[in-house]
């Protein structure tokens, strides 16, 4: 199961042997209910000029033949976090889901990872990309009736970067120096250094706009946002209830209410969907997807995405400090075989570059295949001709693709004299004090743009840098790209940097995984989304009953 800043309290109970023997009803249907899969590269460009995209991008195209009916109560099963809900401190699935339904930000990502305006009507930078003027959408109200003004924006963003109590988005906004109110609907933001992708940072789901004076009381009445749904009830660890916001500035949702129920055991998701307890379940494994497809009355919704579970090698420690060892390892991995074995083929093959949906991602890459001969030769050149022994640390919480890929890798590595010991540790240990220091490990990452991902994962000061790779040429290209306002030039720089990355960096990205949700056939209108976690990225505002 893909996992990133969020914590999936998915206690692992692997009963796939029972799953495979379970037949749901008397009839078996081998039909793959048509699930729209979003195609590949779509541009990811931060929005500068006046072309503010309509929030939500393309309209919902119903996948089932049916006319949208207004009304209904949607019941969804998912693993609920169980810690308190501060919408700017979202790390668990339920809070992230609320970020997408109850709250909104100045910008957001559309289903193809393109940055579009949300509460901002227009964002214009100065020539040096050090000042951004944000003009707000007029006539937006919070769920408690209060109007959205510049003060709310200043309050919310200041709250995120407050040095005494920084929120999730604080480190990515560390270069934001100050905010200035220009008028009731306009805010100017001053940056300490030029940044061409600033609007993309504002689009992060945890950087949402709250009413001035919000404090984390945990009470439903205080949790007001501007989004298409209002929060009506919240019982920790059990149930979250929403009602549609009739005064929403955008398209009001079709459904009247929805409830999210806590499911701790992932097989209960499929059971509950099959017997009608839930109308929608998120985050299914490929095996569970197959079971859903074989059952009557329910189907899967699939979306390709840029989510990946790579191997990460610390380029500053032996043996990975020798680039030939890193290259050898990239050649040992049997990519298609790993994809088929761990994800039942539900994904696209990777070539070690991380940002699949970045517009600079090369279109016609030659696929890296397994080449044990070349790997052995590289290892010999690096002085490891007599063999090499490493430990790979993995966390089962990150899903099959993070664990089994390491097991498969270990099998193949034996053939070139490399002994890989796969060490499974629990969440508290993996993400504890030693995280970001494991010499060799696997992990799960969400879809991001290349520059943003570099800030989080690869730059020397990146807070989640597990790789510790130093390359002055790559870094200087990236730093220049960060300040290049012209999109075409910027993409050129990024493309060059990606080439170096592929050759020399410490990430082995063997594939990107599809996201799979399950739904009742009474529901339609879903819009597949490439971001992370769920095939529709919590886009319940598009759904309707047929």
């Amino acid at each position, binding site marked *: 199961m893909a996992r990133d800043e969020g914590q999936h309290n998915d206690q692992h109970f692997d009963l796939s042997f029972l799953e495979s023997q379970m037949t749901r009803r008397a009839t078996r249907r081998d039909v793959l209910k048509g699930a729209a899969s979003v195609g590949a590269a779509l541009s990811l460009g931060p929005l500068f000029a006046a072309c503010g995209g309509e929030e939500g991008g393309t309209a919902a195209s119903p996948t089932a033949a049916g006319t949208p009916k207004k009304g209904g109560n949607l019941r969804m099963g998912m693993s609920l976090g169980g810690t308190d809900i501060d919408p700017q401190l979202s790390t668990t699935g339920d809070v992230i889901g609320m970020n997408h339904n109850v709250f909104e930000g100045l910008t957001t990502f559309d289903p193809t990872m393109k940055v579009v305006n949300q509460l901002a009507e227009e964002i214009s930078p100065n020539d040096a990309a050090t000042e951004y003027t944000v003009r707000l959408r007029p006539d937006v109200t919070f769920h408690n009736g209060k109007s959205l003004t510049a003060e709310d924006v200043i309050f919310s963003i200041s709250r995120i970067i407050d040095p*005494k109590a920084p929120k999730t988005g604080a480190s990515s906004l560390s270069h934001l120096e100050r905010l200035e109110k220009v008028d009731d609907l306009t805010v100017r933001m001053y940056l300490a250094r030029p940044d061409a992708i600033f609007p993309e940072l504002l689009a992060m789901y945890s950087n949402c706009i709250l009413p001035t004076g919000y404090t984390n009381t945990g009470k439903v009445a205080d949790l007001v946002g501007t989004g298409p749904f209002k929060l009506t009830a919240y*019982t*920790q660890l059990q149930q979250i209830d929403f009602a549609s916001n009739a005064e929403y500035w955008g398209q009001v949702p079709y459904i009247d209410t929805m409830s999210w129920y806590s499911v701790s055991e992932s097989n209960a998701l499929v059971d509950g969907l099959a017997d009608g307890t839930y109308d929608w379940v998120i985050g299914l494994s490929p095996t569970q997807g197959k079971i859903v497809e074989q059952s009557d009355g329910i189907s899967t919704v699939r979306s390709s995405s840029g989510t990946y579970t790579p191997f990460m090698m610390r380029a500053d420690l032996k043996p990975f400090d020798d680039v030939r060892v890193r290259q050898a390892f990239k050649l040992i991995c049997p990519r298609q075989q790993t994809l088929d074995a761990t994800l039942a083929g539900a994904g696209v093959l990777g070539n070690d570059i991380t940002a699949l949906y970045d517009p600079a991602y090369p279109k016609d890459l030659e696929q890296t295949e397994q080449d044990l001969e070349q790997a052995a030769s590289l290892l010999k050149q690096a002085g490891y001709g007599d063999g090499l022994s490493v430990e790979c640390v993995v966390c089962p919480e990150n899903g099959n693709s993070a664990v089994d890929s390491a097991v498969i890798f270990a099998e193949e590595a034996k053939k070139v004299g490399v002994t890989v010991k796969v060490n499974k540790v629990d969440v508290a240990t993996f993400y504890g004090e030693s995280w970001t220091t494991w010499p060799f490990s696997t992990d799960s990452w969400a879809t991001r743009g290349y520059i943003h991902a570099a800030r989080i994962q690869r730059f020397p000061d990146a807070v989640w840098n597990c790789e510790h790779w130093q390359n002055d040429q790559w870094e200087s290209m990236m730093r220049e790209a960060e300040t290049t306002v012209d999109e075409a030039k910027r993409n050129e720089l990024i493309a060059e940097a990606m080439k170096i990355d592929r050759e020399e960096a410490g990430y082995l990205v063997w594939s990107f995984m599809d996201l799979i949700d399950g739904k009742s056939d009474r529901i339609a209108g879903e819009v597949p989304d490439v971001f992370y976690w769920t095939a529709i990225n919590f886009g319940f505002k598009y759904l309707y009953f047929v």
Partner: protein
Amino acid sequence: MPPLLRLILLRVGLGCVTLLLVSLVVFAATQALPGDPARAILGKGAANKAVYEGLREELGLNRPLQEQYLSWLQGVMTGDLGDSIVNRGTSVVTLLKPWVINSLYLLVITSLVSIPLSILIGAMQAYWRDRPFDHVTNVTNLVLSALPEFVIGLVLVLLLATSVFHVLPAVSQVIIGTPLYAQAEILVLPVIALCLATMPYTCRMLRASTIGVLDSEFVMMAGLKGLPNRLVLWRHALPNALGPTFQVIALNLAWLTGGIVVIEYVFNYPGIGTALVKAVANRDMPVVQALCMLIAAVYVVTNLAADIATILVNPRLRTGMR
């Protein structure tokens, strides 16, 4: 003071000491675990040192350990179980109330079904010992007690909910807003699973002690006097055989309170087993403490009740008591 009352008071006193010791051990254990509530709240975000340290300060985790424990203990003495650390602003009582009620439903219904049924079956086994009924029941009890609870649960789901028959819901999703008795069908499978998990022990215990009693001289005497077999069994033999069985029943009840995590997990039922697992995962000390004390209290009370019941049922013990 009547001896029985003195016994009760003594045991209640010892019970309070037990609870205090439990709370100390639980506190030490949660502190010894790697990680802390701030890490649980932030997940991967805890790698950001500034956010992590800020949250630790906000949650009061940097206070010395004895201060944290004593301030919690002080609250408990005055009846305040405190607030949850990871769900700020929510008191432990508010948080746990629905979970405890859910578990209570399961506990009460399971007990009401399993205890009389297992006594009946155990007595019947002893009465017809070494006959076909006894053999079949013995084997069944052995198999059931050997199977892990989650296997029993899953087989029930397969049998009655998803594959063979579709008469019951596969998932015991409690819908908040509707009282539990109105959603009674979600309780059936977990209760059956729990009964099947606990009945074998009580049956075997009762069977063994009833057989022992049926072989004793006074039973032979009663039979020789011409009393009908059924009267001998129910009126004379059983009350004496029940003594040791109460202990088993008490252990079962205590186990049902705290140990049904697996069943709750299989059926996705929100009871205190699940609550405890989640609280430990979140390192939420006040919630963990409250739950552990609750379970310890149930152990103390059920054991006390079992001892009293044993005494009441056996007049010899009543007078021989000090």
